[in-house]
């Protein structure tokens, strides 16, 4: 190492960049969540039915009708606003199903644990560990809020207490939390996570918001251009597949059964492959 300040600063910058490149491991979470998203596709398939008493060989099956009252209690708990209310670019959305909720809960919990374990394993191999606390906190928060926080608040506001009592109590809790943490930023982040958790419960592809927020946290930790750009494109894609229907965009009929999951999965898989190739070529 050199003593000249200019050379010393250059050398330290090179060391920092090397340590950063060595600890990068985002390619695996991208591939993992890309596959998780892709595997969710069959859960969004439309169920087709024929009317009872009609020979199924003689008539064209139609999308099954459904009623909110047919859904199990868990569905109503997870979707307190009444389920998939928002429109997506799918012209005729699939009837809601508890199977897709269970799939996402299991997949997201396993994905979170796998990513944390991956970074620990990688640290043991390479010798330099990426901090995963922010990623874990954001994902765990966004898993817990739609499962418990949003349903409980909905019950509090519109059932048990009524909004006349629940609203002042909630405002008092927010003010107390801000005072306790001495940070308006902390409170704003928590409120943003609550808003995001609400979106998870009302959008058909809502669980992708959990993935997007977690990967945004990961991009913050990884400090990699490829990771940040992929996470940003993925977040934009998630917004698109959940919201485009509102603006009159619908997928072509031939692809509408899988396009809303295939497109975000494609973004993650491409980001993961680029990250993997960069790591291999940098060796």
């Amino acid at each position, binding site marked *: 190492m050199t*003593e000249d*300040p200019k050379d*010393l*600063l250059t050398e330290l910058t090179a060391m*920092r960049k090397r*340590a950063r490149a*060595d600890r990068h491991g985002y390619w695996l979470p991208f591939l993992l969540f890309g596959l998780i998203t892709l595997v969710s596709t069959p859960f969004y398939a439309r169920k087709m039915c024929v009317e009872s008493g009609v020979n199924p060989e003689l008539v064209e099956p139609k999308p099954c009708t459904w009623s909110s009252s047919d859904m199990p209690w868990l569905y109503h708990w997870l979707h307190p606003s009444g389920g998939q209310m928002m429109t997506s670019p799918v012209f005729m959305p699939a009837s809601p199903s508890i199977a897709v909720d269970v799939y996402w809960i299991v997949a997201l919990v396993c994905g979170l644990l796998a990513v944390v374990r991956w970074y620990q394993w990688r640290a043991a191999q390479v010798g*330099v560990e*990426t*901090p995963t606390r922010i990623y874990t906190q954001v994902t765990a928060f966004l898993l817990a809020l739609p499962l418990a926080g949003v349903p409980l608040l909905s019950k509090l506001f519109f059932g048990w207490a009524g909004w006349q009592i629940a609203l002042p109590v909630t405002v008092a809790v927010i003010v107390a939390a801000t005072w306790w943490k001495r940070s308006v930023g902390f409170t704003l982040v928590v409120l943003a996570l609550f808003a995001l958790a609400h979106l998870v419960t009302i959008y058909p592809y809502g669980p992708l918001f959990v993935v997007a927020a977690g990967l945004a946290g990961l991009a913050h930790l990884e400090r990699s251009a490829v990771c940040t750009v992929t996470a940003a494109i993925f977040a934009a894609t998630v917004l698109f597949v959940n919201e485009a229907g509102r603006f009159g965009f619908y997928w072509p009929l031939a692809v509408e059964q899988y396009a809303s999951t295939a497109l975000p999965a494609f973004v993650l898989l491409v980001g993961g492959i680029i990250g993997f190739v960069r790591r291999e070529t940098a060796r």
Partner: protein
Amino acid sequence: MSDNPTAGLDDTVHQRHRLGVLTIAAEAKRVEFTYLKSALELTAGNLSRHISVLEQAGLVEVEKGYEGKRPKTWLHITDAGRTALAAEMAALRALLDRHEGR
């Protein structure tokens, strides 16, 4: 307080290998002894001495453990270490600016 940038240099941190240890440690949650030895091209004995100085100054914390049967030593930078590193880098940049007449 002197406005000479050298006044901002801390003897504990300014030593170039210790500065290297802090720079790498600041980039990660924790960093392993062998990684530092290879990145800084130091012998184990030399690196141990530098780490002891940083540990005594409260700039890093050392954690010894096992990975399977292999002993491993991990090091992580403290808040004081991050502050000292930021101050050192600022002093170095100020020194460079003065040298270059900016």
